[in-house]
Structure formats: structure tokens, C-alpha cells
């Protein structure tokens, strides 16, 4: 049952991603309503899937890579729907839904079996630490999408190619502002995730910090976003540079999330 929910949600996200990409070439009111409708439908089923897994397994369903990736996508969609509702930025979906789809596909390709929790994971820290981490990461994912939008729009304005896409993309100022706000939201969540993670590590392994690759890369990510905020406040790095840094930051997030697990060995199961 919960697998079917996941598959249908994935299908809706796929359709939404296709529509959103087509919207780059030609968009109408109807097409953006269709896109939004597909996302909402996918999100509802996705939520049902997560709740179902929680009920079946009895613990928060963020205990393996499949679940983590799925929950990550869920958080991104949540941010996306909120921004759509709050700002109605033109073409935001075209830059976000493909990202969501990629996460969902990778989730679908990872083993889905619900195994009993290993003793290390049997802790209330599991829910707190992972939810904090993924809300933060989802905010960074949004900042990444908006950073790309900024660079595209900035390119149009600088090079004076004021075509149809320029007309439909939001203004530079609003993109820069939302990018900044998302990072100010994501950063404290990431900070708290690292703190709760080390508290958990202390209770599970007896040590706050063990220079595990996951820990190291989280710290690198943290420094990148700290830098984004710092240079913005001190040197007024905004616009293009802020957008580039937020894209870079998200690459670090991705590496922490996927790269560390597949390339480096980590204590961290996901």
C-alpha cells in the first residue's frame, strides 16, 4: 500500500517536472495551474506514504537512504508550495521540480525494506536530528534553485537579451532577497542539526566529535553558508556572488548527503 502511494507520488512529481520544464518554453495560466495541481496531488500522496511508513514501522521513517531521500524531497516540496503561496514567483517550479524529481528517483532506486532499527538508531535523537537536518537542507535546495534563477535572469539583464524568458522570470531583487532569506532559515537548522548530532554521538558512541567524513562534510557545508551570510553582511556580497555561493553550498550539501555514503566510508548510515 505505502509503496503504491510512493510510486503514484513519484509519477505526479515526474509529470510536474515535465510540465515545469515545458513551461520554460511556453507558459500560460493553465499550464502553471496544471503544474501546481500535479505537485499538490503528489505532495498529498507523498505525505500519506510517509505517515503510512511511520505507522507500519513505529518510528520516524528516516532510517535508511530510501527514506531519507524521500523525506528530503518532501521537505523541498513543502518549501516550494509555501513560496508559491507566498510570493508566486514565475517559473519557480521549472527550477525546483526537476531537483525534487531527481531526489525521488534516487530514493526509488534505493532499497526500501523496513528493517528493525539498529540499537544506535533507537533514540529520540533520530527524529530530532534528522528532521532538523532535512529542513535545513531543503531550505538550501530552494536557495540553490533560486540562485540558478538569479544567474539566468542576471545573464539576460547584463547581456541585454530581453526575450520571453526574461519577461516571465521574477525580478533580480526578489530572487536575491528570497535566496538570502532561505539561507537565514537553513543555517540555524543546519547548526542545530550538527549540535543535536554531536549530542547524539556522545550518548551513542561516547564522543561528541569523531572526525567522521559525514561530520567533516557537514562542517564544511556549515562554513560555506556561514561565509555566505558573513560576506553579505560585511562586504555586501549580494546578487551574483551570493547566488554562486548558494549553489556551491548546495553542492556541499549534496556531497554530504550522497557522496560521503557512496564514495567515502562513514559511520553514518545515511
Amino acid at each position, binding site marked *: 500500500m505505502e509503496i503504491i502511494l510512493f510510486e503514484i507520488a513519484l509519477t505526479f512529481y515526474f509529470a510536474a517536472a515535465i510540465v515545469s520544464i515545458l513551461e520554460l518554453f511556453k507558459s500560460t495560466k493553465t499550464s502553471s495551474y496544471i503544474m501546481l495541481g500535479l505537485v499538490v496531488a503528489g505532495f498529498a500522496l507523498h505525505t500519506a506514504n510517509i505517515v503510512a511508513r511511520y505507522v507500519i514501522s513505529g518510528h520516524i521513517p528516516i532510517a535508511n537512504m530510501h527514506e531519507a531521500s524521500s523525506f528530503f524531497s518532501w521537505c523541498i516540496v513543502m518549501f516550494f508550495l509555501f513560496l508559491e503561496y507566498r510570493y508566486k514567483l514565475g517559473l519557480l517550479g521549472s527550477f525546483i521540480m526537476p531537483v525534487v524529481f531527481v531526489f525521488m528517483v534516487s530514493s526509488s532506486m534505493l532499497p526500501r525494506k523496513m528493517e528493525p532499527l539498529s540499537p544506535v538508531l533507537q533514540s529520540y535523537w533520530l527524529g530530532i536530528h534528522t528532521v532538523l537536518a532535512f529542513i535545513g537542507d531543503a531550505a538550501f535546495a530552494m536557495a540553490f534553485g533560486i540562485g540558478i534563477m538569479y544567474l539566468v535572469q542576471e545573464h539576460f539583464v547584463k547581456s*541585454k537579451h530581453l526575450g520571453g524568458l526574461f519577461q516571465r522570470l521574477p525580478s*533580480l*531583487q526578489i530572487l536575491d532577497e528570497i535566496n538570502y532569506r532561505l539561507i537565514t532559515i537553513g543555517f540555524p537548522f543546519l547548526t542545530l542539526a550538527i549540535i543535536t548530532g554531536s549530542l547524539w554521538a556522545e550518548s551513542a558512541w561516547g564522543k561528541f566529535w569523531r572526525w567522521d567524513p559525514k561530520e567533516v562534510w557537514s562542517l564544511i557545508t556549515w562554513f560555506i553558508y556561514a561565509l555566505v551570510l558573513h560576506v553579505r553582511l560585511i*562586504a555586501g556580497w549580494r546578487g551574483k556572488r551570493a547566488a554562486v555561493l548558494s549553489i556551491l553550498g548546495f553542492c556541499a550539501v549534496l556531497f554530504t548527503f550522497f557522496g560521503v555514503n557512496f564514495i567515502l566510508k562513514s559511520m553514518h548510515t545515511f
Partner: protein
Amino acid sequence: MKVLVIGLNHKTANVDIREKLAFNGPRLEEGVFGLRKIPDVREVAVLSTCNRVEIFSCVNNTVAAADSIKNFLAAFHSITRTDFEKSLYVHRDEEAVRHIFRVSSSLDSMVIGEPQILGQIKDAFDFALSKKTTGVLLNKLMKKAISTAKRVRTETRIAENAVSISFAAVELAKKIFTNLSGRSFMLLGAGEMAELAARHLVNNGVQDVMVVNRTYERGCELASEFNGKPIRWEDFLHELVHADIIICSTGAPTYVLLKEQMLKVMKERKQRPVFIIDISVPRNIDPEINKIDNVYLYSVDDLQEVVDTNIHGRKVEAGKAEDIINQEVEKFLRWMSSLESVPTIVALRQKAEEIKREELEKFRGRFPDLDAEKVKAVEYLATAISNKLIHSPTVALKEDSEDRDELIAMIKKLYGINEDEE
């Protein structure tokens, strides 16, 4: 009844003639009533704007009516007919309908796709409606003109994108700053185009206007015009830090702002974005400045290029709009022909014939044993009754009366004759 349009516009008449023929203020009411009193004119509405004067009418005889309307115009505006006659265009029937649709859809405007004309048509029509000088035909025509214009607007991109330099500047500024309220603006130098663009920016909410001029007195003059603050030429680099939008038009022979200076300004501004429009020829601002992050420099040629592509785009869209208009004209003509009395009379006959046939069939079914002679007699009776019943409506329809259109509509409703429209 026939549709007749007599008018002139910016293409056919110069401003002198347009002014003389305009129906301004109270003269509009007088004019509409005067036109309605012409014997041939059944329905009339007048559109009078600075670019066009048009008389939309429904008449019995287009040739006679056109002649009377021209005479009326001459008398009403006290000018000789020959002075303006060559500037007039006269459209009849299909061409008249097409013309009205093209005007309302802004295909006939000086700037294709400009939005004001639709509002002006609505006003002209509402005015005529309130003065009761229109009827079934013109009401429908005007409604269709408005809905066609809306269709053109939603189905084509005719009204998208700015087609004047100052509009393009404002649009661009909005893509950089989202909205202009609270932004500060510096006018460097003077000049017609620069002042026009400045006025556009102020109308769009720009606050804190700074005016810099080599002659301080001239700067003060301009500043008071924009409710701004005059700034001495020597101080402008210093004040530049506070300007989000800069329009430059100084007529200096060399650059007045160099890249190094701008880099310093940006540092002081903490990299907040700046939009600079250099209208001067030769250019007054080092084009290299566009390479600085968060600085967007547009020269007058850049803006002109934007405007040219937009105008070209509108022309392409105008082709699509013509297709839509052709469809709507055809629909309207079909509706008009359904208003003619002949098809209604035919339909009425058919209806009566149909009822008669059905009832006779039922009658025969109920009395199958009746002999042929009696059946004949009943048939005769039925025919007589149905003919008598439709006789007077037919006569009324054939009469050339003033309210025939309403009569036709009414008869169709009373006898349940369906219009095959849309």
C-alpha cells in the same frame, strides 16, 4: 439594416482636422442626438479620441446615410465639407464590422496593442446606450467588439512588452528592483528624452529625486518640477552613492563616470544594485561599467533595440490577431443575416408546417377508420388555421418598420425558433 462606419484617424487626417471634427464634452451628447435624427440613421454611437473620430451607425441606405452624415459633420462643426472629406474613410457592411473590431483590438492604433482604445470604445458605447441612441444591432456589435478585443488580448501577445524607450526603461527597472516605490533616482543633465523617462519613473513611484546640472539654476528648476533636490555638479560623484537609478544625458564630449569611480561607489553602496541609463550621444558613461557586478548599464541604443524587437514582436502578433478578427467578423455576419426577415419568415412557415404535419399524423393514428374524404377535410381545416395564425406575424415581418430587429428577435422567441449562432 446595414452597418456604416464613417471616420478619420491619425493615419488619414492631421491633427488640425482631427481637432475640428472632435466631439468634446457636451458637444458629444448634442452630436449623438443630432446624428440619430438623420432619417436614414437608425442606431448610432460616436467615438472621439485624440487620435480618431468615428461614427458607428446602423442605417437603411448606406449611400444616402453617408452623404447625410457628412453634411451633418460639416454643419455641426461649421467647416466646409471639402475641407475634411478627403480625410474620411467610409466602411460598409463586412468592412465596417471588421474595422470596428480592428479598432477595439488596437490593431488600428498608432502604437499597435496599446490598451487605452478598448476603454474609450466602452465609454463611447456606454454613453450612446445611456442616451438610447443604439439598438439591437449596434448593441450586439459593440459587445462583440469588446469581447473580440479581449480575445485578441488573451490569445496573442500583442500587448506584451514595452514599445517606447521610457516604458522600456521602467519595465527594465522593475525587473531589477521589483517595484520602484522607495527607490532613489538621479537625473544627470537634462534633455527631452531624459526628462520623459524621469517623469515615467516618478509616476511609477520613484522617490528621492536628485537633479544634477552643470548650471545649478537650471538644476534647481528641473528639481522643483520633479519635487526633487538639486545637486551641484561638483558633488555628483559623492551623491551617486545614494542613487539606485541614474539617467544620464549631459552632452559632455567625454565620459563623466569611469569604471574606477563606479567601483568605489559600489563599495560604498555595499553592492546594492544600480541601474544606469545613458541617453547621451556621445556616451557619457564608460561602457566598461556594465561589467561591474550589480551594475546594469543601458545606452539609448540598447533600449532602442529592445523597443525595436518588441515592436517587431507586436507586428507578428498582429497577424494572429487578424485571424481572430476574421473569425469574429464571420460569426457576427452570420448573426446579422439571421436578423433579416426572410429567414425568419421561412422558419416560421416551417414551424407551422411541422406542427400541422405532426398533429395530422396523430389524428390519423387515433382515427384509422376514417374515410379519405373526411381526412382531406380535416387537412384542409388544419392548413387554413395554421396559415391564418402565421399570416399577421408574416405581414409584420415584411413591413419595413423601425423596430423590425426587435420584432424578429421577439417572434423567434415566441415561436421557439432557434438561432443557429455560435
